[in-house]
């Protein structure tokens, strides 16, 4: 089992979700994060005081998947999250030791 973590642009979330749903992915977890990267933040001016905002709102998507599904899922995320403009984000993949479904105590692939 792998955990695929994708940092994407917030307005792409719906597309990515629909893409993954199309693949039969049955679950995912999403959180709001702020990203610092090549994409530069902007400047906000409040009553003459200029503040540079380094962190840009992003969405972090976490999907745990069977090893064999990793590739097509990454593919789908790439497809749906890409705008081609700087700041599109990253995908990180890690290995999981185990997974448990709290409701049923199932573990492993059954738990996803």
């Amino acid at each position, binding site marked *: 089992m792998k955990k695929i973590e994708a940092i994407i642009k917030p307005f792409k979330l719906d597309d990515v979700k629909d893409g993954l749903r199309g693949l039969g992915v049955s679950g995912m977890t999403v959180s709001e994060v702020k990203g610092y990267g090549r994409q530069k933040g902007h400047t906000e001016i*409040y009553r003459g005081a200029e503040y540079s905002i380094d962190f840009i709102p992003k969405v972090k998507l976490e999907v745990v998947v069977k090893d064999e599904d990793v590739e097509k899922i990454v593919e789908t995320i790439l497809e749906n999250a890409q705008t081609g403009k700087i700041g599109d984000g990253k995908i990180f993949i890690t290995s999981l030791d185990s997974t448990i479904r709290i409701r049923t105590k199932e573990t492993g692939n059954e738990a996803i």
Partner: protein
Amino acid sequence: MKLFKHKNVQQLASLLFGAVAILLFFSTQAFAASQAHIDSGDTAWMIVATALVMLMTPAGLALFYGGMSRSKNMLNTITMSFVAYCLASIIWILWGYSLAFGPDLSGIIGSSSNFFMNGIGVKSVSGTIPTYVFVMFQMTFAAITIALVSGSIVGRMRFSSWILFSVLWLTFIYSPIAHWVWGGGWLSKLGVLDFAGGTVVHINAGVTGLIIALFLGKRKGYGKIAMMPSSITLTALGAVLLWFGWFGFNAGSELAADGLSGSAFLVTNTAAATAGLVWMLIEQIRSGKPTLLGLSSGAVAGLVAITPAAGFVNPMGSIVIGTGAGIIGYLGVTLVKNKFGYDDSLDAFGVHGLCGIWGALATGLLADPAVGGAAGLFYGNPKQLLIQFIAVIAVITFDVIMTIIIIKIVSLFGSIRVAPADETEGLDSTIHGERAFEI
């Protein structure tokens, strides 16, 4: 700012207290209730006008300032206005009103005749309205003036120091100045025009704010870290409530529902709208981003500037005043503040101080005799401008000196600035143990 050593402060303080004590207890003559008749229309208007001005402090200003402060200091900012209103409510009927509007003592202060509302009853009449209504109306002015000061010092002042400061300030600064201009004191004898409080309220609050901001020093990280306003939405709502309340402030200062209050009403609105648009236009030109904060700030700047002039200028004059206010306010919070580098956090000085001065002088320029009977420079009376100028200087001077004294006195009871760690964590949590939003 270390002008005074501790023993000097103590000497000064005793002097000050002595002088005031003498003034206060000099006269005890009874208040002779005017024989005038109550007009129900004027009374209706003045009760409502007073309620409108009341709304300005714990709601209008509280949100205007609260929304501009960082979310960790939002409640503290609101509380400073709210508690100022409560303190003024009590101080005013105990002694403030009498010091300001009691029988005149040498043009400098009112006597103690009306301490504790002594000599004033349900049947007392001032002009065509009950005296109690007049007392309340004037109280709301005292309340907002001290609350305005808090804008200069959000995010770093000890709460107990603020309370003590407010009490002393209302007693030793606001009440005398109100007496000078409106209570039959020397400036009123001189013929100063201040319809609703350019000197008494705005210059007064702005200058005090600047002094106390200088004394307190800048907020930690000022100019380096981002200090995001907690809610522009609430700031805008606050600005609108201020505007709404200002109708009571300016049109109410006529103390009657008549043609002149109607005129003050119209010019108040016009100046506010003009200044809001001008401020926003400057933003558009300078940065390409016309902001709601700018529109709101501009409207407030316009309201400030028209305040002294409201009963004296015609509608076209109010457009001139509003335009000036938009420009001056904008420069005040950007150029001037950045140049001198003080941290007048929410611009009590930049907006209220500077636009108050502009309004006071502009009254001396634009006063149209066809409106309120008094003429300014443009209507052939250059002397008025001089008088306005004297009043501005007098108020500023008195403010600077007295504010420093009061700060010194308050400082005797411990640092007036919060501990650095508390400032970093935020005053809502460290002083009040609360949070503004849990959503």
